[in-house]
């Protein structure tokens, strides 16, 4: 889908902004000591604070603050040394306090940015803010015929809400934003990014405007150049983000072209039906009665502490990519390798053995990733270690084995395991570079095929047929370069 939608009355532009809730990676909750592990027995990880018992008070978890700051730094964002926790008041059974503690007016992190590598361009998406807040519990409506149950394990778990500016212009960019943000959080170790466990959820704001409206918005900052937005709540995969944006933008264009207006509202994405449905309109929206939480003092950070965290930041995807490109990788290969932290770590482990980056990247992208995809395995679950793959690449590079043998070798190591070097040794897979053995094989093939010898003289390209026959005769172990050289000499073909 491109950035414009062709309508009957002209072109429309899509504008997308996103609010991502990311669970902070921390052993304890934001304001209590209760554990945060996923999948525990219902209500087994609940402190008196999380259950909203009388007289209980929140105490900020330093680790969570550190993680939020680390994330802010990773987003190249402004860190606010003074931030304030507010109460967002509303009634719901999975919200035991009757309010969520969140940062409303003064968030801990201000403006930052994320770079998206799209096919033909790199896009900069602005980050508006990042703030910390408590998660709610979970209402279970399917446990009893006429009662609902509540599981408070998630109640009080620390979340970061990361709000983008409306700088995405297509469904692909929206999905790419979420993918890149997830990658950065995982590099930083501040969120595990497990979307199917709810560790990351996106609220996607979609609007459409007439062609040119977005440029005017960017030039002036005036939101009136954009259309009315609808917020699609809790989208929990990249694919669904893409599909939801496509559906929603099309829906809005259809309404506008029929002479209707877009109502600002919250919508739900139904992935089974692939459509969005209205949840509540702006008029039905809660009045949250935000006010500073009097149980908590303003959060004041020490610049030196922030600087310490900055110094401990790992290399992030963009920097890693730049380094790999400098080391000889194509931009494409580098982008693929750094996208997932695990792939990048795997690749780095291969490079650590001293092999050349380009060869390692080609091998991974062309051979190993293909096999993983086919088997439906994540890189962390694949059967071949980075060191084993590196050993194979190394043996190809120093002509110990041929490229073709390398693939066979990978198949063996994949299914049977073992040290590639030992396998090559034990099964006699080493490449033959002994000229006399190859000469013998070449001569035998020439002698057996006089007809073909005549043909190749007229059509030198047929030489590859002979190469294939010699390779076959040597069980693939002959060095193809040497075979070619001897063939050309014996057949009297010109050198290239």
């Amino acid at each position, binding site marked *: 889908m491109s950035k414009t939608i062709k309508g009957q009355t002209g072109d429309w532009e899509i504008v997308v902004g996103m609010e991502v809730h990311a669970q902070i990676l921390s052993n304890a909750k934001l304001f209590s000591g209760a554990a945060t592990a996923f999948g525990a027995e219902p209500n087994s990880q609940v402190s008196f604070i999380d259950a909203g018992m*009388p*007289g*209980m008070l*929140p*105490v900020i978890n330093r680790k969570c603050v550190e993680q939020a700051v680390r994330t802010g730094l990773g987003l190249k964002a402004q860190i606010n040394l003074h931030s304030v926790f507010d109460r967002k*008041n509303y009634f719901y059974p999975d919200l035991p*306090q*009757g309010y969520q503690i969140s940062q409303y007016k003064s968030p801990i992190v201000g403006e930052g940015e994320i770079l998206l590598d799209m096919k033909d361009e790199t896009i900069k998406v602005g980050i508006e803010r990042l703030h910390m807040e408590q998660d709610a519990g979970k209402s279970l409506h399917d446990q009893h015929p006429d009662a609902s149950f509540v599981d408070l394990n998630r109640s009080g778990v620390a979340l970061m809400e990361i709000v983008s500016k409306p700088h995405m212009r297509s469904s692909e960019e929206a999905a790419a934003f979420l993918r890149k943000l997830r990658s950065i959080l995982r590099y930083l170790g501040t969120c595990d990014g497990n979307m199917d466990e709810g560790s990351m959820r996106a609220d996607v704001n979609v609007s459409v405007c007439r062609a040119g409206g977005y440029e005017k918005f960017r030039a002036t900052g005036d939101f009136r150049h954009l259309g009315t937005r609808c917020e699609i709540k809790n989208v929990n995969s990249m694919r669904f983000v893409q599909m939801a944006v496509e559906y929603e933008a099309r829906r809005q264009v259809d309404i506008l072209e029929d002479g209707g207006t877009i109502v600002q509202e919250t919508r739900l994405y139904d992935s089974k039906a692939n459509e969005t449905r209205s949840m509540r309109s702006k008029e039905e929206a809660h009045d949250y009665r935000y006010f500073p939480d*009097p149980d908590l003092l303003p959060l004041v950070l020490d610049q030196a502490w922030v600087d310490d965290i900055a110094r401990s930041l790992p290399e992030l995807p963009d920097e890693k990519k730049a380094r790999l490109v400098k080391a000889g990788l194509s931009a494409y290969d580098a982008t693929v390798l750094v996208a997932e932290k695990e792939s990048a770590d795997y690749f780095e482990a291969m490079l650590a053995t001293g092999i050349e980056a380009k060869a390692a990247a080609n091998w991974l992208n062309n051979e190993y990733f293909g096999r993983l995809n086919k088997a439906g395995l994540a890189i962390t679950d694949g059967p071949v270690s980075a060191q084993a793959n590196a050993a194979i690449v190394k043996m190809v590079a120093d002509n110990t084995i041929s490229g073709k043998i390398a693939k066979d070798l990978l198949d063996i190591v994949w299914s049977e395991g073992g040290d590639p070097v030992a396998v090559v040794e034990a099964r006699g897979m080493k490449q033959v570079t002994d000229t006399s053995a190859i000469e013998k094989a070449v001569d035998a093939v020439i002698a057996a095929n006089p007809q073909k010898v005549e043909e190749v003289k007229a059509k030198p390209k047929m030489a590859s047929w002979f190469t294939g026959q010699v390779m076959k005769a040597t069980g693939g172990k002959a060095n193809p370069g040497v075979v070619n050289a001897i063939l050309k000499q014996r057949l009297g073909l010109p050198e290239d």
Partner: protein
Amino acid sequence: MSLPSSLTDFSLAEARDAVHAKKVSSKELATAFVKAIADARPLNAFVTETPEKALEMAVASDVRIAHGEARPLEGLPLAIKDLFCTKGVKTTAGSHILGNFIPPYESTVTQNLWDAGAVMLGKTNMDEFAMGSSNETSYHGPVFNPWRARNSNQNLVPGGSSGGSAAAVAGNLCLAATGTDTGGSIRQPAAVTGTVGIKPTYGRCSRWGIVAFASSLDQAGPMTRTVRDSAILLKHMASVDPKDSTSVDVPVPDYEADLERGVKGLRIGIPKEYRIDGMPPEIEQLWQKGIDWLKAQGAEIVDVSLPHTKYALPTYYIVAPAEASSNLARYDGVRYGHRAEGAEDIVDLYEKSRAEGFGKEVQRRIMIGTYVLSSGYYDAYYARAQKIRTLILRDFTEVYEKVDVLLTPATPGPAFGIGEKTADPVSMYLNDVFTVTVNLAGLPGIAVPAGLTENGLPLGLQFIGKAFDEATLFRAARAIETAANFTAKPAHWWRAA
């Protein structure tokens, strides 16, 4: 030392010394107070009596004393306001909505007291969620003031919200009690029951485990028969608490040691704004008497001005309900406490449970608080109230460059009759006119008995101090206590009732 003839007439200090000297056993003390409480049920001062617990704790204390392991408050029976969560003992905050809630945890302040050896007699009655100035909003019914006007059988209020604690202290039903003070809930009942009560500096006592009313104003404090007793008790209530982010890590001095230093050379400010319209001459005269006593003891009297005082009461009635409306949202009938029968759905369950569970005054304040925080009104009310709070604190900061402590009346009048002010919330709110400013500024304030009205009802004076300077308040209050020689006691009319 000549000891009182009855154990229940002991001051906390006297009882402590007698217990430590093994002249009296803790069990004897506990037994005497258990009986006094049972005899005083007409006062309705207690909502939960814990006689078994009291005797059990007292016996354990006697063992420690016998082994020479007595702690500072060993074996001293206390009454606890029902706002403090007490492990295994029903805690209602004076409300129906908490039902038969039995906390599985102990508030920090009461834990500090038990750790110092004190003995629990029971939980005292109070205005519902500490919202009230007469103890008449309690779900458990009103408390009667042990004091009655001369030649009168009319029942009077004990003040509020810590009315049960005040009555228990004034009626000699305990050695001392805990209270909490959000806008005057310790000092106002202390003043109208002839007892001493101090609201410490905000952050001095942990709020953990105290049912919250208005978090930025709530503070626990002691209620006692003497200034010395308050000095002793506060020492063992106060602590910095890692579980309360607003508690403050300031050393707690030995207030008792400093008590008799006198007021010579102390600069005492008299804020002119506390001379309000319609103030009864008795209050005016009492205040002047206080000034004269202090002057006679060598204090320097300085006229000062706290110009934003007149905004304090309206500011308080924005800030406190706002915070309360949010703090009380957790009482929803879902997890604990009262749940209405026959609810159609979740919203119906909330509405019915809360309509049945909260009394009228609490509902009124939740509505006021919800209103002042709602979108479109926040800036006009809550945001502006916070700005005034800052100005009020600045008033004090400026005045404290010139004086060490301020002297004001504690209440605009003596105890009034049951039902006299319940019809008019504003006249009820005016009871706190001299006390709320202190909460808004987070400063310590103490009420000390200073005299009787013509009808023989107690009146108190208030000292307001610098932050964390409770020591000076005790010294100044002690000077008033000495000069006033307040020895009057209520007749124990309830024993015949």
